[in-house]
């Protein structure tokens, strides 16, 4: 690798050719402030429009200041990152941004997590000399995401996330000059667009322009309502991230504390979505084997590969973008919805209460789950199977609101019968986990032999698109995995064109899988956090006494007592769904 030598703040630096000034400075401990710049290692997310101009530095011999995030080091460069000229320019740029930003920090949903706020603090901005018109745009309150574009600073991260990483293409910069902002086509509401509600735009937004719809007060209302039995379920990825909200190291598992906190919050039953994940494996795995065996016996009407369907953003994605393939994904509902359906039938019956008197709350790392819970097909006579879906961040807010000292909580267990889960259910939270869980069960059902090993490391990792062939006792099963919808699109195009020969494919909309979901604590661009969360998930799996879904005793019992057999009649009614063609097509 070719190297270049330069001087930054009077210190000599040697870096590889192609390194930016921002990274070169960082390598010698000089942290140049930046705002719009964001790079997520291991994903293809890189946002450096060079637009905010906060990271400008002085390069000797250049007429103008140079953006450090976008300027490559060259031999002999002499760079100064904090001359008077630079500091004045940086402050003025910041003052300009703030002059077109609402002053409602105290009540902003992003307060405390806002990169603009912390930068203003870092630069010590105490007044804004430039006063004038402020931008006002139409608000947008979809079931999952709230867009308050008055707070947009045109960093364009959401655009990159939506268009390049996820290839959903719902957002674009519109207008120009002072009136420019990132918006949907015709500034329509997100729920009229082909938005998948994956929430990756929210995950990367530096300000309060993009936030989730907050349901915490509705949940509190339900809890205090004596007529309601409130049941909560928590998704696997939540336990690997919630601790971060309370100052714990990323990757700290807080399963037990979380259960304790939920109980303290007043939920009547504290259950686990992991239970429903095991249930999903039973249904999806059975469906996979059914399709596979029919296919192998020469039934040409059967389509392979089977695609997982537990990720609601992914479901939205193919309904809008690949409706012609809507028959391929598994018809199994997502764990959240399976849980809701079972809670409001099997469990409500058990409690001898009407389903309307039960409120099911889900805690999810995800914003698309909010949308999913509002799908009309997931309700009975207007009563949704899942009443409210809140994000990891919202749960943290509720815990703080209730004056609970999270760190000092004792570990508690989930309630039964919907709280028991296996290691297979836990790994749903990381990319590759669902398919690994499915393999653990499908292998044993198909081969009628015990698995020689439980850890399929070939299915794990952060690579955007992965594939592996698993030996089902002589039968090679080709597995594909994609996380991030852009990667999903590539995989899907290959399936469409007949280029791939996968039997089963797992797709998760968010980079990293659910641990990187749009409802998780903000990672602020630090990808190590995601890796630590994934490691935590696999750690919990490894520590579980039971690690195969079909061995979950409560699942076995559920089939015996209530459902009959996987993919049976009642399963179909309660646990399976169908998909819709939502593509807008203009026929002539």
């Amino acid at each position: 690798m070719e190297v270049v030598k330069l001087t930054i703040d009077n210190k000599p630096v040697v870096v590889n050719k192609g390194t930016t000034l921002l990274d070169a400075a960082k390598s010698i401990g000089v942290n140049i402030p930046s705002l719009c710049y964001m790079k997520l290692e291991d994903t293809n997310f890189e946002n450096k429009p060079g637009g905010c101009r906060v990271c400008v530095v002085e390069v000797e011999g250049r007429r103008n200041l140079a953006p450090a995030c976008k300027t490559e080091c060259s031999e002999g460069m002499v760079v100064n990152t904090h001359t008077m000229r630079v500091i004045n320019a940086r402050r003025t740029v910041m003052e300009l941004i703030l002059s077109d930003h609402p002053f409602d920090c105290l009540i902003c949903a992003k307060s405390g997590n806002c990169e603009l706020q912390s930068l203003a603090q870092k630069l010590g901005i105490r007044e804004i000399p430039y006063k004038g018109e402020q931008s006002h745009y139409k608000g947008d309150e979809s079931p999952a995401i709230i867009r308050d574009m008055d707070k947009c600073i045109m960093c364009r991260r959401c655009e990159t996330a939506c268009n390049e990483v996820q290839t959903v293409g719902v957002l674009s910069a519109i207008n120009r000059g002072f009136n420019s902002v990132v918006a949907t086509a015709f500034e329509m509401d997100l729920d009229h667009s082909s938005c998948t509600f994956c929430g990756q735009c929210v995950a990367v937004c530096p300000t309060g322009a993009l936030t989730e719809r907050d349901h915490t007060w509705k949940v509190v209302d339900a809890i205090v309502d004596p007529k309601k039995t409130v049941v909560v379920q928590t998704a696997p990825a939540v336990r690997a991230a919630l601790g971060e909200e309370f100052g714990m190291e990323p990757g700290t598992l807080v399963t037990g504390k979380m259960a304790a906190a939920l109980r303290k919050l007043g939920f009547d039953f504290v259950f686990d979505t992991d239970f429903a994940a095991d249930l999903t494996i039973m249904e999806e795995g059975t469906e996979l084997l059914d399709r596979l065996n029919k296919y192998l016996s020469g039934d040409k009407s059967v389509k392979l590969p089977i695609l997982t369907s537990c990720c609601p953003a992914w479901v939205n994605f193919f309904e809008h973008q690949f409706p012609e393939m809507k028959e391929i994904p598994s018809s199994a509902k997502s764990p959240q919805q399976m849980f809701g359906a079972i809670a409001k039938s099997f469990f409500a019956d058990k409690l001898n209460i009407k389903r309307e008197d039960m409120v099911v709350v889900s805690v999810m790392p995800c914003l698309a789950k909010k949308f999913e819970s509002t799908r009309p097909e997931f309700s009975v006579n207007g009563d949704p199977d899942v009443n409210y879906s809140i994000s990891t961040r919202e749960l943290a807010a509720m815990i703080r609101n209730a004056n609970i000292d999270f760190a000092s909580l004792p570990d508690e267990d989930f309630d039964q019968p919907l709280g028991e889960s296996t290691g297979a259910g836990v790994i749903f939270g990381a990319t590759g986990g669902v398919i690994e869980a499915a393999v653990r069960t499908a292998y044993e059902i198909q081969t009628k032999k015990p698995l020689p090993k439980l850890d399929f490391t070939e299915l794990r990792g952060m690579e955007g698109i992965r594939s592996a062939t698993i030996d089902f006792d002589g039968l090679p099963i080709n597995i594909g995995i994609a996380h991030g919808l852009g990667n999903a699109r590539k995989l899907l195009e290959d399936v469409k064109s007949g280029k791939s020969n996968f039997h089963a494919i797992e797709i998760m909309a968010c980079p990293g899988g659910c641990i990187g979901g749009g409802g998780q604590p903000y990672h602020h661009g630090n990808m190590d956090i995601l890796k630590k969360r994934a490691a935590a998930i696999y750690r919990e799996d490894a520590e579980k006494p039971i690690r195969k879904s079909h061995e979950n005793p409560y699942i076995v019992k559920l089939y015996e007592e209530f459902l009959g057999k996987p993919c049976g009649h009642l399963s179909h009614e309660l646990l399976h769904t169908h998909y819709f063609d939502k593509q807008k097509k203009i026929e002539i």
Partner: protein
Amino acid sequence: MAKFKNHILVCAGTGCRASQSELIVENLNRAIEDNNLGDEVQVVRTGCFGFCEKGPVVKMMPDNTFYVQVTPADASELVTEHIVKGRKVNRLLYVDPDSHKVISDSKEMGFYKKQIRIALRNCGFINPENVDEYIARDGYAALGKALTEMTPEQVIKEIIDSGLRGRGGGGFPTGLKWDITRKVKADQKYVVCNADEGDPGAFMDRSILEGDPHSVIEAMAINGYCTGASKGLVYIRAEYPLAIERLKIAIKQAREYGLLGENIFGSDFCFDIELRYGAGAFVCGEETSLIHSMEGLRGEPNVKPPFPSESGYKGKPTNVNNVETYANIPVILLNGSKWFSAIGTEKSKGTKVFALAGKVNNVGLIEVPMGTTLREVIFDIGGGIKDGKKFKAVQTGGPSGGCLTEKHLDIPIDYDSLLACGSMMGSGGMIVMDEDDCMVAMAKFYLEFTVEESCGKCTPCRIGNKRLHEILEKITQGKGTKEDLTLLRNLSYVIKDTSLCGLGQTSPNPVLSTMENFADEYEAHVVDGKCPAGQCKALMQYVIDPEACVGCTLCSRVCPVDAISGEKKMAHIINPAICIKCGACMEKCKFNAISIQ
């Protein structure tokens, strides 16, 4: 042009067409027919003559008689008198404003005397819709010479030696740019002509494309030969329908003659040109924005480097030059770099075309050698200030340039001197202002333009220019303070220093140059609450002279806001708190009793 005895050249540029020059052509043709002169006289529609102030212009050949401000009704007289009877129509000839003498040959006119026409060499001489006329004036000879006698390196050396610099604004050495593109290795390269002339008040490129489209096509092909590109793209404003039309015709004719296409001049060089349309965004004059626009994207610029020469259209090496730059190329190759570099100043060679407009007597398109002074341009060529008013400032470089004043009149016009005094060459807009123009309002006007045209990608341009405009608005409203002047200055420097592209890096120039050159005028606005030029409405006050007022009540009746009170036959008074300064009262008053203070 040999077949006919007489030619009547009629300017068919946008300006003259707006004054019915098409109808003049029609009427001329009818008159020729009526007089059975169809075999002897031919009417030729040409590109712009430049002397737009006196348009529509009609020129008689071969005797070089230059008729001005011709109307369609004059057509038959021109034929019967000038052609048939051989008598000049005196009333349509140009009258020198100083000597009051009638001048019939344009070479003798003050407007043309100091001009040297290189880029505009064919404008007003040939029919731009006829390739033969271009060829008759050595058209495509340079391309032929390059392809058959010269290597790309030799051509580039000739261009480098000529000292030609980009005429679009930046002034980058053209030959060097070509050389960089040539040296980058790639399977495909592109030649782009930037015809997105966006400076308000500049129409050089349009006139060249309308008057001499082949010169640009020829130069682009030469560039293709030098850089190794087989494809050319002209990015042209959709607002220029006539230029588009003529360019399309020219490309078609060039293809028919084998001057575009495969194996040009029997060589193995292949080259063709396509048009791409702008859609009304000034920032697309910036080359990276232009390339994005050609790629079907929003015209937002990119941070440079990489430069288009390395990575441009579709990520391929792309040579972008503007229209006027290209128009210079063929002549340089034919006459040699020595000839070209003998014209102009040490660091700025050749000529520059300016669109001279504003408060001068002779508005029009001019081409002068580099080094000509502003005074020569404004007073000799431009004929001085309109209505005998006093010269106040001249704005060069459009929204990116600055306002220069009396003390700059004798500096030679070239890239470096203009830059040194806080303005720039720009693409060639030159707007003259007189004593009635308020410099604060002028700066505000340009900022309004920049605010509207900023793409919004970078903070300083998006928000900074808006704030600059707001402060200027405040000052012209009479609400400015001295602190505002400090803010204005700091903000201007930061915007220049931190903006992403050339638009933002130059947008504060009108503010900084007026603050520098007309500091007292800013002071007057913020300290005394006065607009010395009397242009800022909010700082004006209408007053009734009680001596002159007879109390006719006419003014109070016409006032739309009832700001005027007074008894009949008594002196009236205007209440300044209510007055909206519409001026209706002053217009109505028969006794000149109302004035502005």
